[in-house]
């Protein structure tokens, strides 16, 4: 049976109905990986043996009724900054080149409880710092729609793997747009939940106050179902939130009548590519035709989100990444002179350029004499940004806008000017600062055939509203289309 074009839920259904075995589903996924990995390089590690063994286990569980999840038996790929017991987890960094976690992330354990079969670990920007997946220590990942272009980042491997039908779905992480932006560039659907919704236990920290794990899949229904599996209150994560309404799939309703949707006029001004703008406004028209009330409004403070973010994220990164010192795990320099020199050499040789850049900036803004002027100033700005969203959500159910100012840039164009690369995060970053949920949904392509995504942002804990709006749009748009490169594998 041909399964590669199926959504995760469709494949789960076929497995449940015994039209296809778990092993067959896993073999199809591996076949596509063999066919395309040489071109795309979505993965750092593919665990064939483990996946096939796990397939048998899940098949037995389905037979004796101990495994019942809607995605039981469906293959999944996990971003390489999410710990997986007994399976190499590198964060795409040399400093963790040999790290085999002794435990799994809570989100991974929950997937497993639902009967997921993990195929492997996906490539990313080193420690999730980057917007192109080019800062990986293990080579670049290519965009399945056009291999001369980047897949976006930092969850570029996860998004490329889903877009190319190597796996039906994947987990990513989002600190400043790292699920939504590559989803937009790769033409797949990716959701960043409200901060505190998915446990961060086992997610290797970058900016702890901003990091969230979330689903990447072919459509909105899959994302809602996956989020249902991975969300939970977890005592092992001190910032986990005891929230209500984990039944995200109940929001898969094709009805937006009366829904109030706001488009920040400051998102549509200078810097936004015309083709992207056109696609975004067309999406708004579709929702309007379905009965939503759509209007533009000034969100304000948009241009302050990026500087505030880079101060806060770098500060947190400098603290979080202090643990990589060559003592307990990971890379240790071969030659050194005493303990401190061992720390310094292991870190200097183990971290890549972008990671060092952010650790240094973070160390600087936290140092005495600069702490108030930079770090506290950024936290005050964050409070103001949160307030401007609070005001917007008094009027609107959902905020609609672009995910990124452009479609995927060409390989090799972004890293030469880091500041310019950071500016590409303008529409995604404030969502992390304010802790909000956001989803990226494919809404068209540019003249070159590269995908464009629309972003729907909700108030804290209002995932259901963005899922509903995204689902309604998707019903009008039509089902997901695979890139040509993946179809070769499908036919």
């Amino acid at each position, binding site marked *: 049976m041909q399964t590669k074009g199926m959504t995760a839920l469709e494949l789960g259904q076929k497995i449940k109905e015994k039209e296809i075995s778990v092993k067959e589903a896993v073999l199809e996924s591996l076949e596509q990986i063999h066919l395309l990995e040489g071109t795309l390089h979505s993965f750092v590690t593919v665990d064939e043996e483990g996946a096939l063994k796990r397939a048998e286990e899940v098949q037995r569980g389905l037979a004796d009724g101990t495994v019942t999840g809607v995605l039981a038996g469906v293959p999944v790929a996990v971003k390489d900054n999410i710990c997986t017991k007994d399976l190499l987890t590198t964060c795409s960094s040399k400093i963790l080149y040999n*790290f*085999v976690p*002794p435990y799994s992330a809570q989100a991974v354990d929950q997937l497993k409880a639902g009967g997921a079969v993990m195929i492997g670990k996906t490539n990313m920007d080193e420690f999730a710092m980057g917007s192109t997946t080019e800062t990986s220590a293990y080579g670049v990942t290519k965009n399945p729609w056009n291999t001369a272009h980047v897949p976006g980042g930092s969850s570029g491997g996860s998004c490329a793997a889903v877009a190319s039908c190597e796996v039906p779905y994947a987990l990513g992480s989002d600190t400043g747009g790292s699920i939504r932006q590559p989803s937009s560039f790769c033409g797949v659907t990716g959701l960043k939940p409200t*901060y*505190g919704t998915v446990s961060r236990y086992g997610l290797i920290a970058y900016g702890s*106050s901003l990091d969230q794990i979330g689903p990447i899949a072919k459509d909105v229904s899959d994302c809602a179902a996956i989020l249902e599996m991975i969300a939970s209150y977890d*005592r092992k994560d*001190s910032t986990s*939130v005891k929230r209500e309404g984990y039944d995200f799939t109940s929001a898969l309703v094709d009805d937006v009548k009366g829904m109030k949707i706001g488009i920040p006029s400051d998102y549509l001004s200078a810097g936004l590519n015309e083709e992207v703008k056109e696609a975004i406004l067309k999406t708004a028209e579709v929702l309007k035709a379905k009965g939503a009330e759509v209007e533009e409004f000034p969100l304000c*403070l948009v*241009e*302050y989100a*990026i*500087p*505030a973010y*880079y*101060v806060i994220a770098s500060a947190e990164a*400098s603290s979080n990444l*202090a643990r990589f010192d*060559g*003592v*307990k*795990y*990971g890379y*240790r320099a071969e030659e*050194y002179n005493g*303990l*401190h*020199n*061992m*720390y*310094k*050499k292991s*870190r*200097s040789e183990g971290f890549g350029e972008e990671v*060092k*850049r952010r*650790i*240094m*900036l*973070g*160390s*600087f803004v936290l*140092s005495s004499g600069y702490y108030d002027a*930079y770090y*506290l*100033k*950024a*936290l*005050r*700005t*964050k*409070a*103001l940004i*949160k307030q401007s969203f609070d005001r917007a959500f008094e009027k609107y159910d959902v905020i609609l806008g672009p995910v990124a100012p452009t479609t995927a840039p060409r390989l090799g164009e972004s890293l030469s000017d*880091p*500041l310019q690369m950071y500016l590409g995060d303008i529409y995604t970053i404030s969502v992390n*600062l304010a*802790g909000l949920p956001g989803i990226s949904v494919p809404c068209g392509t540019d003249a070159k055939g590269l995908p464009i995504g629309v972003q729907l942002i909700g108030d*804290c804990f209002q995932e259901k509203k963005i899922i509903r709006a995204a689902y309604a749009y998707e019903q009008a748009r039509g089902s997901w289309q695979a890139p040509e490169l993946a179809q070769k594998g499908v036919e």
Partner: protein
Amino acid sequence: MANIISDETIEYVGILAKLELSEREKEQAKKDIGRMLDYVDKLNELDTAGVEPMSHVFPVHNVFREDVVTNADDRENMLKNAPAVKDGSWKVPKTVE
């Protein structure tokens, strides 16, 4: 560039960040940090007087629990990733003279 990072500052940052930088890397870092700070200075346009710094978006409080051991002694497993081991412990260079 409005923000000039001195040699002393970059030495200090290197100590804080526990990074050993080559001369070339130091020069690059001075440029990079200076340029980022020029950009970050944009925040000074905002009047934030009286605004409380927000470290967390939700009104969360410290979470306490009883200090009960729930995980088993996993020494062998934890040492599996160690770069160097001696007598069931992590081995590091001499720390006290």
